[in-house]
C-alpha cells in the first residue's frame, strides 16, 4: 500500500477529482437554476422544455453522455473544446458532468421552491415586483435554503460520479486506479486507498451541508 502512495501521484489524482467536482458543481448549479426557473415559469413552452431536460438527462446514463461528448460531439461533429487532447477531454468531462447533475440540481431546487408557501409569491407580486424580481428576491433565496440538503446529496453524488470521466480518459482518481491495476494487477490496497480518498472528500461535504441546512433554514 505504501508503494502505491510513493510510486503514484495519488494526491495529484485527487486534486484532479476535486477540480472536476468544483467546476462541474458551479456549472450544474448555473444550468440547474436556469432549468428550475424554466420549470416554475408562467410560460408553458419553457415549463415543457424544463421538464423535458430533467426527464431526458436524468434517465440517460452518465457514461453514455460522456462517450457521446467525445465520440459524437468532439470527433464526429468536430466540436473540440481545446486543441490540446487532455484539455479537450477535461473540458468535455466537466461539461457533461455539469449537464447531467444540473437535472438533479433543478429537481432539488424545485423541491426547495415547494417549501416556499404561495403566500410569499403573492406578497411579492402584490408589492409590485415583476416575476423575475419575485424569483430573485423572494422565491429563490428561500428555495435554495430549503434545498440545501438535497443539493448536498447531489454534490456528493457528483464527487463520486467524476470517476465516470475515466471512460473518456480523464486522469482523476478512478483513472489512476485503472492505471495502477494495469501496472500492478488488482490489489485491495489500491482500491482501499482510492475509496478512502473519496470518503475523505465526501464526508466533510455531508457534514457541512447538514450543518448549513440547519443554520440557514428559513424560520416560519
Amino acid at each position: 500500500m505504501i508503494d502505491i502512495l510513493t510510486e503514484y501521484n495519488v494526491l495529484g489524482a485527487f486534486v484532479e477529482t476535486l477540480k472536476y467536482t468544483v467546476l462541474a458543481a458551479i456549472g450544474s448549479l448555473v444550468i440547474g437554476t436556469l432549468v428550475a426557473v424554466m420549470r416554475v415559469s408562467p410560460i408553458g413552452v419553457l415549463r415543457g422544455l424544463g421538464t423535458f431536460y430533467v426527464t431526458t438527462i436524468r434517465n440517460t446514463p452518465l457514461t453514455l453522455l460522456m462517450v457521446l461528448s467525445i465520440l459524437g460531439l468532439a470527433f464526429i461533429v468536430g466540436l473540440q473544446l481545446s486543441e490540446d487532447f487532455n484539455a479537450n477531454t477535461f473540458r468535455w468531462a466537466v461539461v457533461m458532468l455539469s449537464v447531467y447533475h444540473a437535472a438533479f440540481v433543478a429537481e432539488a431546487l424545485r423541491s426547495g421552491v415547494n417549501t416556499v408557501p404561495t403566500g410569499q409569491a403573492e406578497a411579492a407580486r402584490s408589492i409590485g415586483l415583476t416575476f423575475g424580481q419575485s424569483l430573485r428576491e423572494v422565491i429563490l433565496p428561500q428555495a435554495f435554503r430549503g434545498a440545501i440538503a438535497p443539493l448536498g446529496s447531489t454534490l456528493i453524488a457528483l464527487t463520486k460520479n467524476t470517476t465516470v470521466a475515466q471512460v473518456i480518459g480523464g486522469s482523476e482518481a478512478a483513472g489512476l486506479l485503472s492505471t495502477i491495476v494495469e501496472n500492478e494487477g488488482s490489489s485491495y490496497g489500491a482500491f482501499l486507498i482510492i475509496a478512502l480518498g473519496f470518503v475523505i472528500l465526501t464526508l466533510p461535504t455531508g457534514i457541512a451541508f447538514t450543518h448549513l441546512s440547519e443554520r440557514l433554514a428559513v424560520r416560519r
Partner: protein
Amino acid sequence: MSIDPESMSDSVIDPHLMVRYVPAMGEPLVVMSKVNKHFGDLHVLRDIDLEVGRGEVVILIGPSGSGKSTLCRTINRLETFESGSISIDGKPLPEEGKELAQLRADVGMVFQSFNLFAHKTILENVTLGPIKVRRQSKAEADKRARELLERVGVQAQASKYPAQLSGGQQQRVAIARSLAMSPKVMLFDEPTSALDPEMINEVLDVMVELARSGMTMIVVTHEMGFARKAANRVVFMSDGQIVEQAPPQEFFTTPKTDRAKDFLSKILTH
C-alpha cells in the same frame, strides 16, 4: 368623526375626509363592472358591480365561501376573471407583465396570514418594494421604513426576522410594507382572523388610524367594531353576488334582505 348616512350612498365620500383630500372628480378610484369569475364549475363572482370612491372605506362581509377573498384578489389580479372590467384610478387592469406589476405597486394588499418575507428582516421587508419597484435609494427607503414602523408601533423590531414577532406585530409590519409603496388603495383580506384575541385591537387601531388619514380601503372583516368606527359602507356578499349595501349603522341595525338578516343573526349571537 361623524358618518352621515345620507352622504354614503353610491360613491360619495365621507365629508370629514373631503376637508383634507381632493374630492373625487368624475371617476371613483376603483370601478368593477359586471365582473364574473369561475373556479371550474363554481361561479364565484356573479356580475359584480362595485365602485369605491377616493378616501372611502368599504367593508366586505358575508358567509364563508361567498367570494369575498376572490373579489379582493381580482382587484390586483392575483386572480384572473373571465368577463367584465376593473379599473383603478381610471386605468383598466393590465393583463400581465411590467404594467400589471406597476399597477400592483399602487394597490396595497394585507393578507390574513401576513405573508412577510420569511428570509428578510422587518426593515428589509418594508424597504424591498420601495428599492426594487420605486427605485428609491437604500438610505431614503430605510428612513421612510423606520417612520412607518414607528407609525404602526414596531420600530423596536426593525432588525428581527418575521418568525421572531407576534402575529399582531407581523400584521402591523405587513401594513407598513404596503404603506411604503404609497398605494392609492389598500385591500385587507380578514387581517385579524389569524390573530389571538388580545392582538386584534392593536391591528384594528392601526387600520382605524389609516382610515382616518384618508386611505381608500376595502376590508374583508367581520369585526363590527371596526366597521362601525371606520367604515363608510358595508357591502354584503352571498353566493358570489353583492346582495345588499348600506352604511354600517343601517346595515347592522336594519338589514333589508333575508340573506343579510340570516347572516347577521348568526354572527351576532356568537
